[in-house]
């Protein structure tokens, strides 16, 4: 799928996934109230299919945010439909999102700065072996 876009498939490691799940979920909920399946779909859409969570794992994340008071949940039963649990971001959740935003921007800026100097133009792979003196092997 991703090959057709000309981008390599990115495997995001577990720690990064765990760290990014909170800002991602909060941001999506900041767009409007939503529920599990729709949140996952939005994640896939926003990442161009690069971030794919195991579906079930989203729910413990949502429950943690609920416990921390960042989101509120309510059950709704649409006309003739199944009952569904909707999540809504709270004021505290928005404050948390703002905080996460600042932190991620700082990390992002740092990485951008350092990679600009070590990454060769046009390549997406850091030149780790390049600067090594010949004969080191």
């Amino acid at each position, binding site marked *: 799928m991703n090959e057709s876009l000309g981008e390599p498939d990115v495997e995001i490691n577990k720690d990064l996934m765990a760290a990014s799940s909170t800002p991602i979920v909060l941001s999506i909920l900041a767009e409007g109230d939503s*529920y*599990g*399946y729709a949140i996952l779909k939005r994640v896939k859409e926003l990442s161009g299919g690069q971030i794919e969570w*195991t*579906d*079930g*794992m989203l*729910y*413990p994340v949502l*429950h*943690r945010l609920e*416990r921390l008071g960042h989101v509120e949940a309510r059950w709704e039963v649409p006309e003739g439909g*199944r*009952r*569904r*649990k909707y999540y809504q971001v709270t004021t505290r959740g928005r404050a948390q999102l703002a905080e996460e935003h600042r932190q991620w921007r700082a990390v992002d800026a740092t990485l951008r700065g350092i990679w600009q100097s070590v990454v060769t133009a046009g390549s997406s792979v850091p030149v780790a072996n390049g600067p090594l003196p010949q004969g080191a092997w």
Partner: protein
Amino acid sequence: MSVPTSHSSLDEQVALWRQFLSRRQAIHAVDVAELEDHLREQVAGLVEAGLAQDEAFLIAVKRMGDLDSLSREFAREHSERLWKQLVASPEGVTTVTRQESVVAWALAFGAALALKLPALFGITMEEHEHFYLRNAPFFSLPMLTGYFAWKRRLAPATVRWLALAFVCAAVFANVYPVRETGSTAILAFVHLPVALWLVVGIAYAGGRWSQVAGRMDFIRFSGELFIYFALIAMGGGVLAAFLAMIFESIGIKVEAFLGTWLIPCGAAGAVVIASWLVEAKQSVIENMAPVLTRLFTPLFAAVLVTFLGALLWTGNGVNIERDMLIAFDALLVVVLALVLYSISARDSTAPAGGFDVLQVVLLVCALLADAVALWAIAGRISEWGLTPNRVAVLGINLILLVNLAWSTVLYFRFLRHRGSFTALERWQTGYLPVYAAWAALVVIVFPPLFGFA
């Protein structure tokens, strides 16, 4: 494939999946509902994209993640769910369990009220202490029997027999012209609950009393009840101490209230409440008595081995005082309890293991220690004369000795693959009426036999 059929097959598949999910302790019913909504929407989305329904279902389940890691994630977020909440569980409160709790509390209050009833007729606790001691089992045990009669839906005929047993016991406990502080009166007071406990057992077993399994369940129940009652009693002690302390500080004496209301009524009610708790949690929480047995069997075995070793090494004879035999009775009771509760928790088809050897060591040591004590007392019993107390203590000792000796034989046969473990179970459960019969004998025959001493 017609549309309705495929729909129903999806429902079946989802139901099965839901069942698997519900078995996970960390995932509650609301979460299952939330995940099911997700699964169904995923399936719908995939079907819309052109997949067949069962393919869509498989992919949707796969994407949900494997159950173990999912359940682990839920457990990490909801760690409290791994601790089974018994009384305050928000789910699983069905009308049946609610009804049962209402009945249990009503009977507990009934027991407490029954205890205060004689006071209306001038038999107060302060002045007629012995009346209450003599009749203590009649306030709570009939209520407990009633609880099981209700719960097991006993036949009216059985209930009549049980009631008759209580009435007879009440007559025997009260008609003899015994001295209130005499030894036969005190022996009767100690033995009466043991005899009546069998009546409770028959109600508890609810028609399964004739089966080994039914009696074994009653043994398990008794052990758990003892532990729950002890815990409740400890809590009650703390409550009483607090009450006394804080009211003392404002100059109000509450000792009389504690002694004649809170403690006796609380104890009577606690018997019923503890039984109800044991019933409610029996399949939910691991039984405590076998856990304690596992802990203490090696310790008691070590103590007894050391004792016998010291006896041999020093060559000291057992210095049997008049009341010393009671200590050996207590030892046999403890050993019997250890053996009984190990048996109650053991899978009878499992092969013999190290713990079984330990049990045999414990049994043999207990028998040897008791034999030494009996040997020492045998010569002197005629010298001291046969008082009711001595006969009672000796009787208990013999009953326990017979039980443990035969248990040891059966255990040896089991270890040497000549007998099954079930024989041991059958022996122990079959022996239960012997205790009750002996207790009844002490209550009914001893007073006239010893001239109401």
